[in-house]
């Protein structure tokens, strides 16, 4: 039974630098980095040493607390460095890749003829399991859980997001194999964008329930979709997988290889020619950016502007990211009358009507990373609700997290949310509070105390 949902709350932030629908090649660079910090809450246990040779699909570390979850190398090459931080915490594993990738062979398999346990073990051993995340808590799914559903969103509605209809066009077979594999473990919900015309990859998908959702961002977030289709109650689990990662899982079954390559979008106002590129997880972005971004102090983000991670110019693509965004840093002080808090209101984007941006709905903005204000206590009410399409009181939930009232958090719906669901709240917050951080903290507390 498919569902059609329409949400009215939300916000599309229109930014300059949308990727042109052209797939380009980027020169090969060999310094791959797998950041263990991409996996929240993970304590990695290494299985390799510096100097070891690995193939794409070879295990490099596993989860110390849930040992069946293995992480494999996306490329073949040699381990060059293991970067540690405070208390010798492992931060990343660096790999010098070979130009020609050699793969571990996991064997060609037909997911439709496999049992749930067989699929699960196959995913775990090949290292694609970490693509499956769980709600609540928003961490890598626990293989021991029995989820009530697996949600896949067929589009990304965040600012400048890659267009999955374009990216996964022609990947029907891989995507379908991935969906079939997932459907062995739980019912799969695939949610399409009702505003556009989804690609045949999605509309023809089988072994899943196809839903439609229309509305502004965060309509494309799985959190929004779960909340409106099959909300999570206490004690229940829902798994989520990104659409491109479904294709990676599918390719594993079709080819027997762990092929961790994606089509990523290089976007943002400071990119000269925003386009799509084929890149593997952990790839360095340096060659991608060189000569292609404007001069000046820029912020490079692996992911989108709302939820991505800040990386250096010689940083690497994150494990979960389909996008690299470059926007200007906002380190210059802004004089109050010309550009600061008293400005007439034409240059900045705001949902507040004290700026005129609402009169120019088509205008695309070049936004920088300035906070545009100072951090304050919560004062304004009602603004978060406008961009938060959940039957949850966002401000009350955030406050309950701030004073660590676990019981109240539970009652107010902490199990249904992930930090990314609050990204827009964080964007609009007049008091400039780091709301995603607060929610992450709350989820960690709940995980520690209640699960």
């Amino acid at each position, binding site marked *: 039974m498919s569902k059609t949902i329409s949400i009215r709350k939300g916000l599309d*932030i229109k*930014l300059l630098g949308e990727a042109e629908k052209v797939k380009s090649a980027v020169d090969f660079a060999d310094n791959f980095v797998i950041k263990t910090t991409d996996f929240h809450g993970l304590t990695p246990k290494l299985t390799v040493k510096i100097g070891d040779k690995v193939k794409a699909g070879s295990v490099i570390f596993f989860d110390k607390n849930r040992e069946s979850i293995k992480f494999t190398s996306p490329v073949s090459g040699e381990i060059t460095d293991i970067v540690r931080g405070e208390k010798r915490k492992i931060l990343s594993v660096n790999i010098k890749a070979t130009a020609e990738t050699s793969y571990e062979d996991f064997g060609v398999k037909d997911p439709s003829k496999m049992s749930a346990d067989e699929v699960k073990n196959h995913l775990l051993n090949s290292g694609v399991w970490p693509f499956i995340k769980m709600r609540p808590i928003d961490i890598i799914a626990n293989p021991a859980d029995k989820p009530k559903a697996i949600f896949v969103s067929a589009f990304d509605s965040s600012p400048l997001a890659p267009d999955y209809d374009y990216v996964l066009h022609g990947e029907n077979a891989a995507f379908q194999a991935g969906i079939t594999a997932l459907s062995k473990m739980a019912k799969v919900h695939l949610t399409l964008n009702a505003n556009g015309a989804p690609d045949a990859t999605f509309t023809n998908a089988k072994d899943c329930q196809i839903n439609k959702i229309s509305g502004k961002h965060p309509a494309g977030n799985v959190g929004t979709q779960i909340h409106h289709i099959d*909300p999570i*109650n*206490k004690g229940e689990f829902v798994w989520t997988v990104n659409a491109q990662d479904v294709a990676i899982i599918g390719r594993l079954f079709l080819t027997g290889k762990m092929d961790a390559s994606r089509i990523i979008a290089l976007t943002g106002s400071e990119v000269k020619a925003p386009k799509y590129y084929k890149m593997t997880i952990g790839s360095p972005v340096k060659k991608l950016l060189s000569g292609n971004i404007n001069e000046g102090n820029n*912020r490079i*983000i692996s992911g989108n*502007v*709302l*939820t991505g*991670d*800040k990386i250096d110019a010689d940083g690497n693509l994150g494990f979960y990211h389909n996008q690299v965004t470059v*926007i200007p840093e*906002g*380190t210059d*002080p*802004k004089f*109050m009358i010309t*550009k*600061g*808090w008293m400005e007439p209101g034409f240059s*900045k*984007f705001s*949902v*507040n*009507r*004290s*700026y005129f*941006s609402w009169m120019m709905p088509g205008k695309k903005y070049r*936004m*920088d*990373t*300035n*906070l*545009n*204000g100072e*951090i*304050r*206590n*919560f*004062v*304004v*009410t*009602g603004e978060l609700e406008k961009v938060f399409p959940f*039957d*949850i009181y966002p*401000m*009350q939930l955030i406050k309950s997290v701030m004073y660590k009232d676990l019981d109240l958090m539970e*009652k*107010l*719906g902490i199990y249904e949310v992930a930090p990314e669901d609050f*990204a827009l709240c*964080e*964007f*609009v917050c*007049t008091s400039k509070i*780091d*709301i*995603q*951080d607060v929610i992450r903290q709350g989820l960690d507390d709940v995980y520690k105390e209640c699960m």
Partner: protein
Amino acid sequence: MMRKMEPDHHGKWAKFHPVWDGFYTFLFTPGETTKKGSHIRDGIDLKRTMFFVILALVPCLLFGIYNTGHWHYVAIKGDMNLPYWEMIGDKIIYGALQVLPIVIVSYGVGLGVEFAFAIKNKHAIQEGFLVSGMLIPLIVPADVPLWMVAFATVFAVVLGKEVFGGTGMNVVNVALTARAFLFFSYPTMMSGDKVWMSGLSDVANKPEGFTGATPLGDLYTLATPEPVVNGLEGFAAKWSFSDALFGYIPGSIGETSFIAIMLGAGLLLYTGIASWKIIFSFFAGGLAIGYLFNAVPANPYMELDPMYHMVLGGFAFGAVFMATDPVTGAQTSTGKFIYGFLAGAMAIVIRVLNPAFPEGVMMAILLLNVLAPLIDHYVIQSNIKRRMKRLKTA
């Protein structure tokens, strides 16, 4: 230039860093950038929000200045029929001389207290008082002594706000706390018929039958055995509806003109800074009770056309600028409707039924400020119950 003056965090002026920070961030939006999470942020900040509320108050302030001047000349000439739009220059000059010192004292004292607490608690100066400092002068009579304003401001900022943790943490509206403090500490200076026309107490020989009372003061005598006006007809002859609408009546400095308040309300609603839910339901609550009294009149006051209630006294001012304070009002969407409705209703109830107070808006809003968390609590409980129900049926 400002950067050079920044006190070193370890130097002897380190304590004054919040003060420097307050001035610096007033002049420049600092180059502070996002660290992670959402890398871009909306253009709005608290300074801009507060600034728009102050902009919205400007019509009230300007009109208040003129109105103060007008009633001063009415008082010293003893002529109730003095044409409103004559002697404009004199009235503006007198009004400005009377009103602006109150504004200056309110800001000076209030910000002084804020700075002191910011230094003591080592936090940044928050912008809340920028609005409170403008609201306080607008809700006191023009004749109020400046030392009282200073005293009330200190009381309101310290006990109304800072003891709770500063801006965003207070339970009751700061400006109304100041007003309530004055009202209960110096009742003779804040009510009755001596204070509403500036300079009236200096006039030695008042003409026969001349009172300095506000329309509400006159109205409230209707419920007593000795009314000063001859029934509602007499009242309407003395204070016409249009006079009250435009604000040609004595009263607190900023509250008299419905039109000026609505100009401000327009700006606040257009920018979405004030909640239309609260303003709308506040008026709805007042009208509902007004009509209810009309239906069961026990004295002439209860028969007053509810539309009159809307334009008299501080009702509109309270609805637009006081009840909508996001910190002290209800925070949930449903809660805002309930809160506004109850506050509006309560204001009229106190006005009409309570013989001690001619004006009930201040009391009503303070009471509902205290009740707002309770209203929110029940609204949130219903959300929680929905979730629990889902868990049971699932």
